């Protein structure tokens, strides 16, 4: 649909007029829908961002999935299963949104397992203790919520609608994580130490989830002009720090940042910068778990091939049987 539409447009319509129409829709804060004309750069930026987001949900199943069989109680196991299933669902909402831009599901999966498209660097860190399940829910999903709530108003309709569904479900993720940590904090000294150790490992990677500082984020200005992004990376990071500090106090843990303090003048927290060299290394594929995550995803895809083929064959056979039955009953 999109390809023919684009060809049709380039032949018959005035590009400047189409662009003016597109820009006026954006200026009115209206949504762009899949069949509307859109600049190639807008389409490409959205595909890149939505695909990266979808891949993050799919890869994001792995770090926590590791703990399903080792959850300490049936209650925790059921919660963790539901959460990991949600991540799969979120990936599917987003892949659907991405497909409305004219890319196929197969193509997106291929680009993930070949490394052509990225996913959030946070999922390249290992989950070393059970406390990490709680920390991921609290801090990683908390950072994701900060990023995602403004995206409910993003200018591309299908993306915004997917984000609304996702945000509704993320709140459960964050609360279950925080509750898990609260439970551990009421336990033994060893359990409290486990929570603190986990928070120490995840704090900086969680801050990196908002992306590089605004000065080093080349796509931000254009994405904001197009209404794809609604806030800058640094704005969202600040919001996240300000939200997290009182939560840490209530929990009884500290963040591993000696520069973290309340700034009365700014009415916000001052805080240190994450190690951006480490960030770039992880993005480039040199994080602790990059190779493992992709290998696992590739294996799941390949191991599932026979299921996909069998379902296709079964569907064809059933369709044929129905056709024959109709033929004889005529």
């Amino acid at each position: 649909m999109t390809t023919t539409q684009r060809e049709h447009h380039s032949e018959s319509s005035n590009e400047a007029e189409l662009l003016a129409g597109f820009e006026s829709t954006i200026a009115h804060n209206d949504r762009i829908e899949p069949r509307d004309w859109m600049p190639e750069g807008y389409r490409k930026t959205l595909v890149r961002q939505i695909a990266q987001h979808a891949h993050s949900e799919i890869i994001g199943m792995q770090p926590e999935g590791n703990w399903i069989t080792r959850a300490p109680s049936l209650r925790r196991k059921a919660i963790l299963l539901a959460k990991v299933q949600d991540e799969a669902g979120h990936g599917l909402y987003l892949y659907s949104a991405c497909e409305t831009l004219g890319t196929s599901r197969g193509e997106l999966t291929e680009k993930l397992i070949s490394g052509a498209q990225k996913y959030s660097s946070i999922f390249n860190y290992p989950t070393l203790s059970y406390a990490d399940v709680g920390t991921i829910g609290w801090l990683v999903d908390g950072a994701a919520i900060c990023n995602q709530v403004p995206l409910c108003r993003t200018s591309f309709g299908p993306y915004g609608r997917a984000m609304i569904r996702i945000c509704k479900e993320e709140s459960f993720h964050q609360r279950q994580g925080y509750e898990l940590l609260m439970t551990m904090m009421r336990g033994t000294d060893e359990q409290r130490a486990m929570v603190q150790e986990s928070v120490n490992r995840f704090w900086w990677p969680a801050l990196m989830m908002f992306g590089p500082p605004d000065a080093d984020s080349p796509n931000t200005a254009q994405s904001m002009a197009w209404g794809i992004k609604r806030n800058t990376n640094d704005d969202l990071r600040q919001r996240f720090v300000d939200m997290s500090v009182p939560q840490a106090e209530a929990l009884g843990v500290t963040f591993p940042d000696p520069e973290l303090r309340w700034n009365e003048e700014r009415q916000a927290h001052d805080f240190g910068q994450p190690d951006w060299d480490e960030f770039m290394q992880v993005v480039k594929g040199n994080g602790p778990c990059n190779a493992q995550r992709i290998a696992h995803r590739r294996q799941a895809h390949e191991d599932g091939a026979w299921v996909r083929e069998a379902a296709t064959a079964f569907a064809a056979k059933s369709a044929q049987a129905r056709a024959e039955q109709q033929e004889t009953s005529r």
Partner: protein
Amino acid sequence: MTSAPSAEWPLYEVFVRGKRGLNHVHVGSLHAADDDMAVRHARDVYTRRNEGVSIWVVRSDAITASSPDEKDPMFAPSGDKVYRHPTFYSIPDDVPHM
């Protein structure tokens, strides 16, 4: 409507009735090998938290849509018929139940 290679399962659009008395509403899409599988997948993807009491699925390529190019001629006929709206008629304020 889709340009997916034939190896890929076809795309379905999913409609969910939130509760009795409401219309089915479009919630998104998914891939499935056939209609039955599309309903099962729709349940798992779109109704994990009691979001629905009924699901419709339809293959995306079976949907006929108005094209955005025809937007003006398509919807123009309703634009200039203000007399179809109740606010077109001025009735004195003291007339009750109008």
